[in-house]
């Protein structure tokens, strides 16, 4: 009992230690300029968003809580941690747009160039921008230097989303390298409204190029807008930031924005634990769950040695068809009487066996045969029934001999 009490006394100390341990490495583990995955960069908790960003030395986060009816078609949030282009300055931009999202043909993405609110950034528009004819008016932004100008498409939430940047090669470089692979930062905007009242809701995407130059979206979107009715609302944030203080200066033609930076310990711990668990689970899955494609390849290589089974199956089916020929078809056996004599071939055949005489009696005879066959079979089953029930040998006589010791 005393041991248990001792454990209970030690437990809070351990808990506090673990709490500290998890809170400090939460940022320390993320140091080193690691690029955030979409799940890490932008997470949604009900009506709140947590957006992580790189502040030059570690990762911080900001929480945006939307009170009211969140309208994905008119409000949104951009999360950008592109520290490469901000000289290690944090960069979180909230965009509004005269037109943000896909065009009517959905063959490009357009993002307005005036950020409604930038917490730390005075160098605006340091994020990926995809746009159409307004490209020439863009300043300070960049379009991705598209690698071999691929068309990117993927399905999110049942919606086919794709774009093909017509300005391939004309923009600024956006590629980054991580783990020796080429990565491209692709914030995605989807919005159905085309009025000024909208923000573009965006999510951070990472993907990379395969050897053929095709862009592969590596991770799914943590949150993407859906078509919903536009209505005004309010963003409310709370907390304090670790790398600066935010001032709420943004206005929204569809509603008011009230933002404050936050970096709460509890949310950090929770998110860190959640990320750790997810990493462990994904690691275990990668270790123990085999890749279906690999299994399929192995299976195909093995089954290719048994292709003759399909041929045998088709032959047997053809044989069944021959057995079940229609009654009006009267088979016969013909003998080939063709001969070759002095280079001349004379063809001919003769019917050796013709069952046309049997046709009138066929149904009757077959009925009698069917009755005898079934009777014989059922009688045999009846005689062997004890052996069948106990799973004995097919031959009762053999079993009897073995029991009696006979030969």
């Amino acid at each position: 009992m005393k041991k248990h009490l001792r454990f209970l006394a030690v437990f809070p100390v351990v808990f506090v230690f673990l709490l500290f341990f998890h809170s400090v490495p939460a940022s320390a583990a993320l140091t080193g300029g690691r690029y955030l995955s979409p799940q890490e960069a932008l997470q949604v908790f009900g009506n709140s968003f947590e957006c992580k960003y790189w502040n030059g030395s570690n990762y911080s986060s900001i929480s945006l809580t939307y009170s009211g009816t969140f309208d994905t078609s008119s409000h949104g949030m951009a999360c950008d941690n592109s520290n490469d282009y901000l000289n290690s300055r944090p960069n979180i931009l909230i965009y509004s747009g005269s037109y943000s999202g896909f065009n009517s043909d959905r063959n490009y993405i357009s993002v307005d160039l005036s950020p409604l609110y930038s917490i730390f950034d005075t160098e605006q528009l340091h994020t990926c921008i995809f746009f159409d004819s307004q490209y020439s008016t863009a300043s300070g932004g960049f379009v991705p230097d598209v690698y071999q100008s691929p068309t990117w498409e993927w399905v999110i939430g049942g919606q086919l989303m794709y774009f093909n940047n017509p300005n391939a090669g004309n923009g600024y470089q956006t590629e980054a390298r991580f783990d020796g692979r080429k990565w491209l930062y692709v914030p995605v905007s989807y919005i159905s409204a085309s009025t000024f009242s909208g923000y573009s809701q965006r999510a951070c995407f990472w993907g990379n190029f395969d050897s053929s130059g095709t862009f592969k979206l590596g991770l799914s979107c943590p949150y993407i807008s859906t078509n919903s009715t536009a209505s005004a609302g309010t963003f409310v944030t709370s907390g304090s930031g670790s790398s600066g203080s935010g001032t709420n200066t943004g206005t929204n033609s569809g509603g008011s924005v009230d933002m404050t930076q936050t970096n709460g310990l509890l949310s950090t711990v929770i998110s860190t634990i959640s990320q750790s668990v997810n990493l462990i689970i994904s690691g275990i899955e990668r270790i123990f769950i085999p890749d279906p494609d690999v299994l399929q390849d192995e299976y195909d290589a093995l089954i290719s040695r048994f292709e003759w089974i399909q041929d045998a199956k088709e032959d047997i089916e053809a044989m069944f068809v021959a057995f079940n020929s229609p009654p009006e078809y009267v088979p016969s056996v013909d003998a080939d009487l063709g001969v070759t004599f002095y280079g001349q071939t004379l063809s001919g055949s003769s019917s050796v066996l013709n069952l046309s005489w049997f046709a009138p009696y066929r149904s009757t005879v077959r009925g009698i045969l069917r009755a005898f066959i079934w009777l014989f079979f059922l009688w045999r089953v009846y005689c062997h029934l004890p052996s069948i029930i106990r799973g004995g040998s097919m031959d009762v006589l053999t079993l009897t001999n073995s029991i009696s010791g006979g030969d």
Partner: protein
Amino acid sequence: MIFEALIHILFTFIGGILSLLPSIDLNFDSSVISTATQFVRVSAYIIPFDDVFTILSIITTLQAWRVLVSLLKTIWDIIPLL
């Protein structure tokens, strides 16, 4: 990762064994057995082979039942203290 490696080893082993088997090709010129086929058709015209095939399938099922019961009895005998 681990299971992929194990499965790869297993499949490689099975594939190595199967590679020893000669290639099987069931394709042949059916014209050489045309006379035999005619006799089969004649016999099928008289004998109700559809019933025969049904009986054969029942016999196969009964044999599978015997195998199952025998397997269970064998396992039962193997287990000690029973």
